């Protein structure tokens, strides 16, 4: 049986995409090993799709100048501060921001994972300015049961999702330790899935994990073994985020020059 385990280089080199989704929430489970490789290979991302709350993975891709537009509801570092590259690029107009909220991302991914043509949203969402600020992402639809106009958003079907897992086996089945956030949904919504795993394990080990904590291998295109692959963000069940390293990033990435200096340290082979 052929294995889906490949090198990070080969996994990224084999990908063809316009839209890319990156998993993780805040400073947790950011798939940095693959993200750094995407930077190294300078792969352009027409649209980056984030989880409801992105952090380092999105900020680095934007900082590297690879992202044309980003569909997101939050990019930041929670109590540690704002996302420096996202902020700089958005303020300068260097990246186009497609504003969503967590409901639109979640229900949009659900629609993508389910083959639904679009996603209807709860009525409350109309009251915020989010949908007004993103005319490509939102439309009004007439509820056929009541005749009332309600808000709808696009189904999200990324070409590729990059997801961090604690374990994966050779056939691609992956186990997400701790909180899986929206990562499993993202994998189900995406045409191809690259899993970076702390450990490649036997299928025998994999089958001990509970329902709803795994991604079945038939949805996974490639597995990359990447111990420590979330650093300096946390890998649930494996290591905490490195607050000092994140603080250093936030300090250095405040300028384009500082970010350019930080990158090769974080990605030895980059540039």
């Amino acid at each position: 049986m052929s294995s889906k385990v490949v090198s990070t280089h080969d996994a990224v080199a084999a990908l063809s995409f316009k839209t890319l989704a990156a998993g993780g929430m805040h400073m947790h489970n950011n798939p940095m090993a693959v993200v750094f490789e995407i930077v190294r290979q300078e792969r352009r991302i027409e649209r980056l799709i984030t989880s409801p709350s992105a952090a380092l993975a999105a900020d680095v891709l934007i900082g590297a100048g690879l992202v044309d537009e980003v569909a997101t509801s939050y990019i930041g570092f929670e109590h540690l501060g704002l996302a420096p590259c996202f902020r700089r690029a958005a303020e300068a107009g260097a990246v186009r921001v497609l504003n969503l909220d967590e409901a639109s991302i979640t229900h949009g991914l659900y629609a993508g994972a389910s083959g639904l043509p679009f996603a209807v949203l709860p009525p409350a969402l109309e009251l915020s300015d989010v949908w007004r600020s993103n005319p490509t992402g939102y439309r009004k639809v007439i509820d056929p049961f009541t005749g009332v106009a309600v808000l709808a958003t696009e189904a999200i079907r990324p070409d590729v999702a990059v997801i961090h897992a604690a374990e994966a086996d050779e056939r691609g089945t992956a186990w997400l330790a701790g909180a899986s956030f929206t990562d499993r949904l993202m994998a189900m919504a995406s045409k191809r899935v690259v899993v970076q795993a702390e450990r490649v394990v036997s299928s025998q080990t994999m089958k001990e994990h509970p329902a709803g904590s795994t991604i079945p291998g038939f949805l996974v295109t490639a597995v990359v073994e990447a111990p420590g692959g979330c650093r300096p963000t946390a890998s649930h069940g494996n290591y905490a985020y490195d607050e000092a390293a994140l603080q250093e990033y936030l300090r250095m990435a405040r300028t384009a020059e500082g970010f350019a200096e930080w990158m090769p340290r974080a990605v030895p082979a980059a540039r």
Partner: protein
Amino acid sequence: MNGWTTSELMAAEMSRHIADGEVAIMGAVSALPMAACRLAQATHAPASWFVAGGSGAVNPHATPLPQSSCDDRLLDAACVLPLPEVVMLEGRGDVFDVFFAGGLQIDAFGNTNLERIGRAEHPRLKGPGGVGLSFLPLAGRVVIYTMTHDPRTLVEQVDFVSGPAKSLTGRGPVLIVTPLCTMDFDPDTGRARLRTVHPGVTADQVRAATGFALAVQDSVPETEPPSRRDLEVLRRLA
């Protein structure tokens, strides 16, 4: 510093707004509301519930409390909901009694903004984004908190509505808690008004630090300081 920090005072005040049996929810940067919820559970609201943001943890037991709302230490909890299900339930409009919300800007009506300061094109400050604040109209009550009480944060009108003050199924914003004071809302005008000042703070100080015209009554009571029991609980969590 009468034996407690501003954060402790704020957490204690916020905890009083959770009634027994109620369900609270919060987003990112939630150390303060998490502490408030834990304090409520340890004191007057033992049967209250809270969902710790992105972790999906229901009533996490972690002591001390982690700073990040998505920390895996939060998963030691009564039970854990996958995050998509938390987002689902937020849409129901009859599940969450109290929603703790923050903002880069908070306006006189209780709208909150995490999106940007300035115009859409080339904003002066691009914020992170509003995540789940657009769900506020479906919460029973909204409690707004900020660690920054200055005229750039408390403004007449937000530059972008991430969290609407208008409610569909509940009462909307009922309280703003800042390092200087608490505010509630005038039922006639819908505008924030000074409710209590923290010990040692004057109404004039609050007015000067507020970017909108703040209604102030003749005599403004002091915010009730945390009790000894409150402080015991809060310090175990810190």
